[in-house]
Each structure stands twice: as C-alpha cells, then as structure tokens.
C-alpha cells in the first residue's frame, strides 16, 4: 500500500500531462488539465513551505540552544528569518512600516540587504571563473592544449579589443570562430548532450510512470 498508492498517483499525474499535450486547451477539457495540474503543484508547494520553515528553525534553534560550534551564525539566520517574515506578514493597515509595500521594513531589508548580498554572490563568480579557468587551461597534454588554444580564441572573439586584434590578423577570423567553433563543434556537442539528456529524462519518466523505477521512494 505504501508503494502502490504513490505509483498510482505518479502514473495518473504523468498520464494526464501526456494526454493534455495532445489536446488543444481551447477546444477540449483534457487540454485544459495541464494548467490545472500545475496549479495543484503550486498549491501543494505553498503548504510545504511551512515544513521548510519548521526545519530551518528547528536545526538552527537547537544549535544555538546547545551552543554548538559556529552557533552565532545560526543565531544570525534565526534573527534574519523573523526580521524579514514578521513585519511582512503583519497588515500594512497597522503601520506603513509593516506589509511588503514601498517604505516597509521588508522592502528596506530586501532592497538594501538581501538584493546587494545576492548581487555580491553573483559577482564573485568572475573570480571563481578565473581560478577554474587557470586550472582547466593548463597545457598538460595535446587535448588540454587544444582546449587552451580554442578557449583563447573564443575569449578574444568575445571582447571588442580582442575582436579588433583578431581582425588585424585576418578580417574574417572572428566570423570563422563564430561559424566553426561556436556554431559548429560547440553547438554539435551541446545538441548531442541535450538529445541524450532528453532521451534519458523521457526514459526515466516512463520507468516512474509504469512503476519500474521506484528508487525515488527509497525502494
């Protein structure tokens, strides 16, 4: 029973989505099932958010209470959760500082703390790319050297100064890089991976729908 019911639900959910794909949503009920089912996913997801909040509070509160290693970080997490959530949940009719409108505490925290921190994380990517590229582009053997040369050409092509330099060598060189490296070798490999991944995803979906694959339930 513990396995059969989820398998039946998985089969029905998958089958409805497949059926909906073959029907016109404007002209048949079956076609309109797809957005309905997806709306249910959102509703279930909304309810499970509470599970997430309970989990994060329990883990961090226990660590603070027991003064575990690095507990001040956990305390900062707890303070951040409640500082963002409580003013946002309370109605703005009580005070303009409450709710999620412009000038509210939530709005201020989001614009001046949350968003800059996200941008900082994203910006750090540039440094990580540099360190990863340094390791990946070392000419250890013939393949790595080929990668180094190709990457250097593509990087030069991507920046205006590099493009001007390439043009000074041969007027059509940037165009050749675009056509043969990016539009040829690179695109062909990417499409090969995409086709393989799509087949893998379809096969796995079929295995799940037919109850052959039950590993996602721990079986």
């Amino acid at each position: 029973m513990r396995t059969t019911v989820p398998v039946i639900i998985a089969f029905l959910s998958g089958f409805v989505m497949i059926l909906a794909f073959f029907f016109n949503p404007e002209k048949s009920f079956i076609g309109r099932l797809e957005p309905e089912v997806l709306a249910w996913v959102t509703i279930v997801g909304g309810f499970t958010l509470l599970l997430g909040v309970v989990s994060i509070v329990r883990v961090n509160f226990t660590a603070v209470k027991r003064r575990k290693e690095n507990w001040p970080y956990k305390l900062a997490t707890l303070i951040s959760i409640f500082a963002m959530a409580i003013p946002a949940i309370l109605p703005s009719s009580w005070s303009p500082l409450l709710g999620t409108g412009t000038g509210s505490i939530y709005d201020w925290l989001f614009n001046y703390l949350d968003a800059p921190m996200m941008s900082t994380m994203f910006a750090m990517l540039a440094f990580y790319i540099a360190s990863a590229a340094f390791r990946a582009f070392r000419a250890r053997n013939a393949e790595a050297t080929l990668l180094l040369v190709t990457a250097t050409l593509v990087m030069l092509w991507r920046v205006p100064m590099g493009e001007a330099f390439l043009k000074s060598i041969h007027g059509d060189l940037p165009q050749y890089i675009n056509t043969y490296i990016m539009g040829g070798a690179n695109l062909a490999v990417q499409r090969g991976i995409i086709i393989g991944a799509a087949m893998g995803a379809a096969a796995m979906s079929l295995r799940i729908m037919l109850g052959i694959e039950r590993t996602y339930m721990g079986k």
Partner: protein
Amino acid sequence: MNRLRPVWTLLLGLLITLLLFTVASAQTESDGAFRVDRLNALIFMALFSIVILIYTRWAKSGKKLFIRKINGLDEVEEAVGRATEMGKPVLFIPGLQEIDEIETIAAISILGRVAKITARYDTPLMVPVRYPMVMAAGQEVVEQAYIEEGKPDAYNKDIVRYVAGEQFAFTATVNGIMMRDRPATNIFMGAFFAESLLLAETGNAAGSIQIAGTAQPSQLPFFIAACDYTLMGEELYAASAYLSHEPLLLGGLKGQDWMKIILVLSILIGTILLSFGVGDWFYDLYKSV
C-alpha cells in the same frame, strides 16, 4: 507470448487512447480538439515505450545486458569510503530545482543509493535543500535507506534540511558548510545554474573529492573544470539504474540506447536527403508545433 504481455497491454492502451482522441475530436463542435500536428510525437512516444518495455522484459527474463562503465558512479563508494576513513561527512546537493523536475527526481534516486552507503559505513551525511518538497522526499528516501541497512536509529531527520529558498542564499549557506565542516566528499546531482561554479570551486578549495552530475549543458564545463568526476546529461538519469544493478532498470537503459540509434540514423538520413534537396517531406515528419 507471455513475456510480451506488457507490450500488448501498452499497445492496447495506446489504441484505446487514440480511439478516445478520435471520439473526443468528433464530439467537439469545432474541429481540432486533438493536436494532429503532434501525431508524430505520439507515434515516437509509443515506439519509445514499446522498445523500453521489450528490453525491460528481456532483462527480467535473465538476459545479460552490457552497460558501459561510468567512472563517476564507480567512484561514489570510494569517495564515501574516503570520508569514512577521514571521519568527515559527505555533502550531497540534489540540485536547485523543485521535485516536479525530472533532474531532481533523478538526484533523489541517487541520494537513496548514497544514503545506503553512508548508513553502511556510519558516515555522517548532510543534504541541504532549496525546496521543502525536495526536503520531504529526501527525508523519506534517506530514512528508507537507513532502515534497509538495519540502522534506523542512526537516521536523523535533520540529515536532509531546508536551508534557503533564494538561489544565492542557498549557495552562501552551502559554501559556509563546506568551509566550516570540510566534508571529505561533495556530491552535486541534479539541476544547477549560475551557482554551479561557486559551489564546485569552494568544494575544491576545501580539498573535498567532488562528483557532479547534471543535464544542464551550460553548467557542465564548470563542473568538469572544478570536480574530480562529472556525469554528463543522460548519465545522471542512468545513475540510479547503474548503482542499483537491478535488471529491470538496466533494461530501460538499453531501450533508451536503441532509441538514440534510431534518432542518430534519422539525423543522418535527414542530413543526406536535405543536402540533395529532396528531404523536405522527411523534415516535416519531425516537425512539431
């Protein structure tokens, strides 16, 4: 005949479905309830299902199936063993997408296999997740793995825990875990985006053995550069079958390979026909709106 019963059942099911389509189309006042332009996809899906079911039946009957070696998956047990020797935890990230994405389901399946190994060796396991639904599924799978290994008491609900819903808040938390707890092994499986390199480079700096797997082609170069082993595209979906060695699941992989051969042949035939200017009809067969 008996062996092919699922195939006949499926064929019958598809015939009934087609009949339903026809009836539904006829009953609709205006024509076009059934997307005739997607009939090619229906035929391909039927063919795909039949091939997979045939191989699944063959595998079930005991026919030996060859599956090529996937180094990244062979190293999972080694990597967990290393963590056990070092007395350090294993960190598993099941991607950054919701549970309704097939990549996340594949990652959860692999998590079950990894949890069995960590349970067997009494190695600490940490699974931070971005979505509560993924957390619920992950907790179920890990608990089941610990029970199957005869160590239900070693299971702790907080092994799989929700850390943050925002992409970079999640990344910052996981990077913090990597630098503070120094896990011996990091396993990244599932859908990753801009954070892939941030995670993999931090793990590399922390000196962890790293195994990654994703079907996102744009993130693969980052994982290849920063991880020790990388599963590319379809290998992620094959992982649960490969690790479990279950004939039923391996049969599905062989069926998938045959469909790839059919697709490659179609691409070759289409390229040749179109090159000679007589392939428009062939191209139209594969077109879907």
